[in-house]
């Protein structure tokens, strides 16, 4: 029995996605949960499935459940880095289908910007990497970029195109934190942090809370919002530590996306909007190759010439993504929320006309874990 089409996102909300004033990480989650439930026309009393993941709380469903004053019957705190929330779409759909819960909430919150830009992490570092001073995660992505350049001739200027396109999208968002254009030269002139990556090859460091509400497709029909259906989902993982990633230029994103597209019964060509985890320009480039938007090694040439900018060939990260809109530590849930905005036709100046089908892809840690989802404005593709 497939979960394809069995569950729908019926509520979505995000709060304080650049800087919060006076809200803790769980406080951000709680406000986002309430607003997502309001969006769905539901209340906290309806929630019996609680899904979250956190860099702040070792037992985040206990933390959030206690804070909200609810006692869920089913919880999931999948810990695979920033793509966990995309994986939880399928986990929630399966739990709903199995009757383990009837209304599922997926929530996230972070005060990473207010924490003065320090990456908050409870994650242990390998005893074989810890003593050498590798900065997680940019040091690892520097090694990925260096290898990609060596193997395929990719250049820093090509990587910079991704940051430039992201900024163009962000300028179509009303609350964009940096509402001015960015140039390739500006990216290349920014300081190198881990060669060959510059400061502007990196995502923003922001605060932010987000939440989405899922229920069965059947129940979704009776709710106030336009449902967004989960048609396909896939996961894959490859390693935990960068020193164990055999080929730094190739990920198992191709496996998770193949699983998701197969489940949905659609092809890449059918997709209207694409939302891909962009913690760094290089991670986005590698993922675009592995997802099949261009051949392996051809990402450098593909991302130029405005192909990824508004009006280009691919509607990618339509709010500017992590590079230019929001990246509160873990990005996955915010990719889903932007896809929901597009599929509901609520994306304002950045709306892709007639968007019906979206692909969301997240990675966790340093290209280690992957989760892909196919979302649809209609119950079938």
């Amino acid at each position, binding site marked *: 029995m497939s979960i394809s089409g069995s569950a729908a996102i019926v509520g979505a909300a995000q709060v304080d996605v650049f800087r919060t004033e006076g809200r803790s990480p769980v406080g951000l989650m709680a406000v986002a949960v309430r607003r997502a439930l309001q969006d769905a026309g539901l209340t906290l009393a309806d929630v019996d499935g609680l899904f979250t993941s956190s860099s702040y709380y070792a037992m985040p469903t206990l933390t959030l459940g206690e804070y909200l004053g609810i006692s869920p019957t089913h919880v999931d705190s999948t810990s695979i880095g920033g793509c966990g929330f995309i994986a939880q779409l399928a986990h929630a759909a399966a739990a709903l289908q199995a009757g383990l819960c009837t209304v599922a909430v997926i929530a996230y919150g972070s005060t990473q910007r207010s924490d003065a830009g320090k990456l908050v992490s409870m994650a242990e*570092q*390998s*005893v*074989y*990497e*810890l*003593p*050498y*001073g*590798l*900065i*997680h995660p940019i*040091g690892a992505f*520097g*090694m*990925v970029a*260096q*290898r990609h350049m*060596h193997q395929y001739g990719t250049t820093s200027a090509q990587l910079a195109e991704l940051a430039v396109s992201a900024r163009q999208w962000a300028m179509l968002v009303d609350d964009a934190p940096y509402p001015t254009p960015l140039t390739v030269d500006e990216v290349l002139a920014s*300081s*190198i*942090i*881990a*060669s*060959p*990556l510059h400061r502007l090859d990196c995502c923003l460091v922001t605060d932010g809370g987000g939440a989405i509400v899922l229920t069965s497709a059947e129940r979704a029909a009776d709710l106030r919002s336009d449902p967004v259906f989960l048609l396909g989902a896939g996961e894959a993982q490859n390693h935990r530590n*960068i*020193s*164990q990633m*055999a080929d*730094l230029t190739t990920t198992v994103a191709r496996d998770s996306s193949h699983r998701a597209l197969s489940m949905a019964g659609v092809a890449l060509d059918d997709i209207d909007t694409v939302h891909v985890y962009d913690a760094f320009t290089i991670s986005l480039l590698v993922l675009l190759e592995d997802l099949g938007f261009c051949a392996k090694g051809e990402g450098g040439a593909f991302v130029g010439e405005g192909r990824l900018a508004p009006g280009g060939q691919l509607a990618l990260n339509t709010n500017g993504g992590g590079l230019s809109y929001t990246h509160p530590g873990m990005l996955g849930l915010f990719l889903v929320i932007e896809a929901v905005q597009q599929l509901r036709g609520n994306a304002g100046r950045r709306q892709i006309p007639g968007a019906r089908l979206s692909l969301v892809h997240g990675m966790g840690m340093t290209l280690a874990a992957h989760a892909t989802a196919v979302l649809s404005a209609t119950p079938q593709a």
Partner: protein
Amino acid sequence: MTAQRPTPTPRGEEAVYFNHAANRELVFQRCSDCDRAVFYLRTLCPGCGSESLEVTVSSGLGTVYSFTTQYRAAHPFFAADVPYTLVLADMEEGFRLFANIVDRAPGDVHIGMPVETIFDPVTDELTLPRFRAATAGVPS
């Protein structure tokens, strides 16, 4: 106040690796059943599931697979070392090792260059393998 060195807490098979390093030996494992080179040290071969893994001393020779030069420190302890270069090297026995390279300026490291392993006793309890540039094919 001086920042404290980030120090691993090796347990079980991890301690075996660091005990050998203290004796100036870089070790990996060879699987007795499938002949795979296994690194880091494990209790189970990730290739075939065998528990028959033989701790084996490496020549310490390898070539750079990739690298990055960091202009920021991961930890206050490394602040004085910036910029420093971290290397992933493919060792001649067929495993990959991560460590810093000690004798090359930023811009003077490239993919494919030969490296050899040296041993740095940083504390009484901890000796770290590190890399330095080597001449291809010549043992240290």
